[in-house]
């Protein structure tokens, strides 16, 4: 694309009117959305050098907690997945596993140039260039590396987006799963699978879209091995050793 005007602009549909014309009908939803924007638990997946900017952003100098953000250590509890730096192919698998275990609504933030376009690892054969191809990124904080002020600014921008209801890329992962899975398969091979049943979740929570299924999810079914529980014996770990 040569000029900016050629880039298609996605038109967001106008906001649906309140149910039954009652101005108070959405009060509860608005309240939950406000709480959601004011309380963000952050799982920092510190892959690269950007990790060093997070301790000052969290501790006494810049104090994230005053805007309601606090670090959490497991994907189950977290709302934000913070990817701070270059993502190697091997790391990306773990990031996707982590992302799929998080409870929606969930948000992905890419920090540093490396998550935007590969940055200084552009020519590396082992680095995933654009994080947005594999996960729905809500916000990029560009820079090499961004200062803590920029990190805080970015988090505030995410907070405002959530409050305005414009930050719902997590739905995109369900609705266009085929697209994301295709990109993942291109990198990891055709037999790539995760333990999380994304398609079943999309059906269960009413997030099924026309592009959830496609040629890549069909390929997933060909290669899918059923997940079986590990054998429960007292010395299961040792058996292999002895044989």
């Amino acid at each position: 694309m040569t000029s900016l005007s050629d880039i298609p602009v996605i038109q967001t549909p106008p906001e649906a009117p309140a149910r039954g014309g009652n101005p108070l009908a959405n009060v509860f939803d608005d309240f939950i959305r406000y709480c959601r924007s004011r309380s963000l638990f952050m799982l920092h997946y510190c892959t690269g050098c950007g990790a060093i900017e997070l301790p000052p952003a969290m501790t006494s100098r810049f104090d994230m907690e005053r805007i309601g953000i606090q670090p959490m250590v497991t994907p189950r509890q977290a709302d934000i997945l913070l990817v701070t730096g270059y993502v190697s192919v091997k790391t990306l698998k773990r990031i996707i596993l982590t992302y799929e275990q998080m409870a929606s609504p969930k948000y992905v933030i890419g920090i540093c140039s490396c998550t935007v376009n590969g940055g200084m690892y552009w020519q590396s054969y082992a680095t995933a260039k654009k994080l947005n191809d594999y996960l729905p990124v809500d916000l990029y904080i560009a820079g090499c590396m961004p200062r803590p002020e920029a990190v805080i600014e970015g988090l505030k921008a995410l907070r405002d987006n959530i409050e305005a209801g414009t930050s719902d890329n997590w739905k995109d992962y369900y609705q266009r799963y085929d697209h994301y899975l295709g990109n993942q398969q291109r990198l990891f091979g055709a037999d790539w699978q995760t333990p999380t049943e994304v398609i079943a979740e999309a059906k269960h929570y009413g997030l099924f879209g026309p592009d959830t299924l496609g040629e890549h999810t069909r390929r997933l079914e060909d290669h899918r091995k059923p997940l079986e529980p590990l054998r429960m014996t007292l010395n299961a770990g040792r058996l292999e050793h002895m044989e």
Partner: protein
Amino acid sequence: MNVASLLVELVLMPLVAFVVGLAMVLMMRRIAARLQRRVGPPFFQPLFDIVKLYGKHTQTSHGLVHDLGIVMAVGGYIAAETMLPVPGMTGIADKGGLVVLAYVMMVPSLGLALGVGQCANPNGSIGISRALTAMLAYDVPFIIVIFGVAFHFGSSNLITIAAAQQAAGIAGWGVSQMPLLALAGLFALHGMLGKQPFEIYVAPAEIATGPMVEMSGKHMGGLFVMQCFQLYTAAVLYVTLFLGGGENWLSFLAKSFAVLAVPVSLAYLFPRYRTEDLVRLMWKWPTMIGLLGLAFLMH
């Protein structure tokens, strides 16, 4: 007391406990922030966290016992709140008494253990085994303290204990009558809260918050509610046993928050004990102090 007013009290007492508990969580986080020279969370942060967690779109449950475990964890404390007399409301404190309360206060840990068990996450199992070991550790001084107070006042009824202290004035308070037991009680209270020197079972960096590792959405929200109740229960029980209970809401809340501020302020200054060191510490110092206090009391 007629049935209607009793029902109102049974509903109101846990509600009041929850609101006060939210403020206590806020105080805890603000104290931590001040000690670390931070600003700390906004006023409504504990409420935002809980609403957000319950408002999660996708909920991950690992089965029926996982859900029931959280219900037990919250329910145990709700039962405990109805047995803790507060100014103007006694609920079923008259029927319950200290012994039932001590039993009910163990239910949340056991419920959590059940729920975590079904998650089948090794971090969770390690965490809950440490939590139950810690419970074994702090319950010994806790029971000694409870026994001592009941012996001193000749009753295990919390209303009687509070009334006896209020009638005698500050000189008759548990803390002036039995300072050694009060000290041991403060130790046990600190262990019960699971704050810093005694928080090996949470250990975020090593076992990923232990029992909470698989909790998301409403399960985690339930645990946040449980934390509010936990802080309230521990503080109010201590106030009732040693600081004369509540004559009116103002002094009652002031005493409760002051009691809680002691372990919370100490908490953020220390690293943590290992589980065996925790047990050794709890079975040595508070138990010894408590037994010494008992000896003075019975002599």
